């Protein structure tokens, strides 16, 4: 046991130190020259939420049937934002740190994880805004909220897996970023973020919700905001239907890790 701990310590000490330094540096640099500094991490989501709320909830009245629709909407956007930022920034991470890759030897996955880390910091701050809104709108907290950490784990696993895969692919094929940009635009509308899933006819909704992001967002809203959220359980009549999106996530994770490891020895030359 002690040997195992020592092995883990020796093996992961350097990657962890590096990861910490890179995340901190990235976060410092992001709000460097701005007047309000770190406050922007909170102000930006607040401002965007306000705009979306005015457009979708007040003018278009899309979410009239959903209780606490403002915070329901915001929560969806925060979750999507994490996915979007970690995959698009993750995609460019290896090529962006080519200088480091060519000059020092370190586990290449640190570069991708550091992007995930700094996006995660933003996500945590965004969640504070969500909690703030929940307090203002007096959203009751239910026991189901205990499922939330598990859903976050699924979200992080999905996003980081894709970041690994895309970053390694981008080293070889430099048009992946354009393609991914288009995919993300399309996915934004294919995932029920701005609209309640109940607006979509059930036969299409069943298909949409097989997307892991749709399943995560709907489940997370269900456990945190309101049980009036339509989830994959209701559409298929069984909670076990989750096996499909969770399975997709797992397959993606394994594939990504294998691909990344296989390609990582040539990153220094090609990035």
């Amino acid at each position, binding site marked *: 046991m002690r040997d195992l701990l020592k092995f883990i310590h020796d093996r992961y*000490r350097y990657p962890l130190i*590096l990861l910490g330094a*890179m995340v901190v*540096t990235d976060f410092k640099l992001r709000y460097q020259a701005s007047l309000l500094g770190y406050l922007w991490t909170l102000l930006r989501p607040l401002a965007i939420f306000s705009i979306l709320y005015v457009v979708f909830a007040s003018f278009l009245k899309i979410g009239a049937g959903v209780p606490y629709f403002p915070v329901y909407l915001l929560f969806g956007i925060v979750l999507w934002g994490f996915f979007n930022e970690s995959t698009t920034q993750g995609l460019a991470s290896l090529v962006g740190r080519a200088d*480091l890759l060519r*000059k*020092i*030897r370190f586990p290449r996955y640190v570069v991708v994880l550091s992007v995930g880390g700094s996006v995660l910091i933003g996500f945590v701050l965004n969640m504070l805004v969500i909690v703030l809104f929940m307090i203002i709108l007096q959203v009751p907290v239910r026991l189901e909220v205990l499922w939330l950490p598990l859903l976050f784990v699924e979200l992080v696993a999905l996003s980081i897996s894709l970041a690994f895969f895309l970053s390694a692919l981008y080293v070889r*094929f430099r*048009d992946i970023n354009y393609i991914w940009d288009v995919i993300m635009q399309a996915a934004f509308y294919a995932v029920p973020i701005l609209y309640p899933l109940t607006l979509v006819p059930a036969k299409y909704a069943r298909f949409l919700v097989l997307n892991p992001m749709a399943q995560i967002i709907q489940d997370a809203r269900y456990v945190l905001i309101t049980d009036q959220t339509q989830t994959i359980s209701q559409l298929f009549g069984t909670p076990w239907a989750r096996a499909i999106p969770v399975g997709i996530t797992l397959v993606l994770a394994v594939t990504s890790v294998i691909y990344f490891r296989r390609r990582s020895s040539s990153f220094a030359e090609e990035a």
Partner: protein
Amino acid sequence: MAQPIIQVRGVCKEFLLPHLRHTTIKSRVLNMFRETRTMEVQTALRDIGFDVQPGEFLGVVGRNGSGKSTLLKILAGIYMPTSGDVTVTGKLVPFIELGVGFNPELTGRENVYLNGALLGFSKSEVDSMYEDIVAFAELEGYMDQKLKNYSSGMQVRIAFSVATRAQADILVIDEVLAVGDAAFQRKCYEHFRALKKSDTTIVFVTHDMGAVRQFCDRAILLEDCRIAADGSAEHVAARYTELFNPRPSVEPGVSTKRKGSGAIRYTRVDVASTLFEDGVLTLDLEVQADKDLDEVAYGFLIKNSSGAPVLGTNSVLKKQLLGGLNKGDRVRVVWTVPNVFSDGLHRVDLTITDFKGLAVYDWWEEAASFTAVKDEKTPYLVTPATSLEVSAIE
């Protein structure tokens, strides 16, 4: 002898030239059905093999593009060899460049912590050595300024100061001394001397033969992607210097400044590239006759770097009659000349004519060259040993 700390066996490295590679999906799709894709392979290293013993200070020298940096990156595990094996026993830290990861937007202090992390130091470890790092770089009072406001000399100093803290069994250093002023370079060398005493193994790439002679126990010369020499620092440094004063080609017909009937020709020319102060110039030559010939005359002419003739003679002038030659005869001709030359590059013309000087068999301009080394630098054609005595007259 102890187990080598680095073992390199049959290492080859090839790069696919990037501009010919299919980096976009479009080009991949367009070229999908083509049988032979145009990939140009550039070889950087060919069959490299050597060992490094613990505590050894190994110099790696060679011209630009000879593969030194690629070799270093392979040792450091940054590049993978195309074939062959590298075995490293112990912790290796590469310095391909000073201040890797430095960010101009961060302060000096933040960069020290970042650079320290890249070397594997945790925050608390950097905390404990921070004062020393700043003191060594002589940058007290500047640490809270952004790095972009530092002069380049200050940046190098802080980077080097962090680098000296690296804890490793093996350091791999690539020409970091090319930057910085004389005072900084002296500091680097002092650090190297300390490292050498502490038994750290060092692999050091440089163009500075003075540093090689001074620090390295052994050196490797890379030329055309291969190891051209492996031995004592002195030997390898001399070979490196020779690269830039190449011996002439002895292949007949290669030189365009060569004329004559070719009835008899020089087939071998050996002239040491450097002629030292107390040395003797030796032109060691071999000739071969292609026909039966009567008496021939061998001659030479030495010109200085501006082309002015300095001295020369031939066997007729020396009244040495050498007799006739039969077809296929080979003869060795050795001239010796005292070092009367002025400091600098000289070129040697070689001639073979008939006895009367009418028929030219082989007239080879610039068949060889050498650099004469003279402490006394006169602007004249020759600088023979002279002596001077000045004494008071009673």
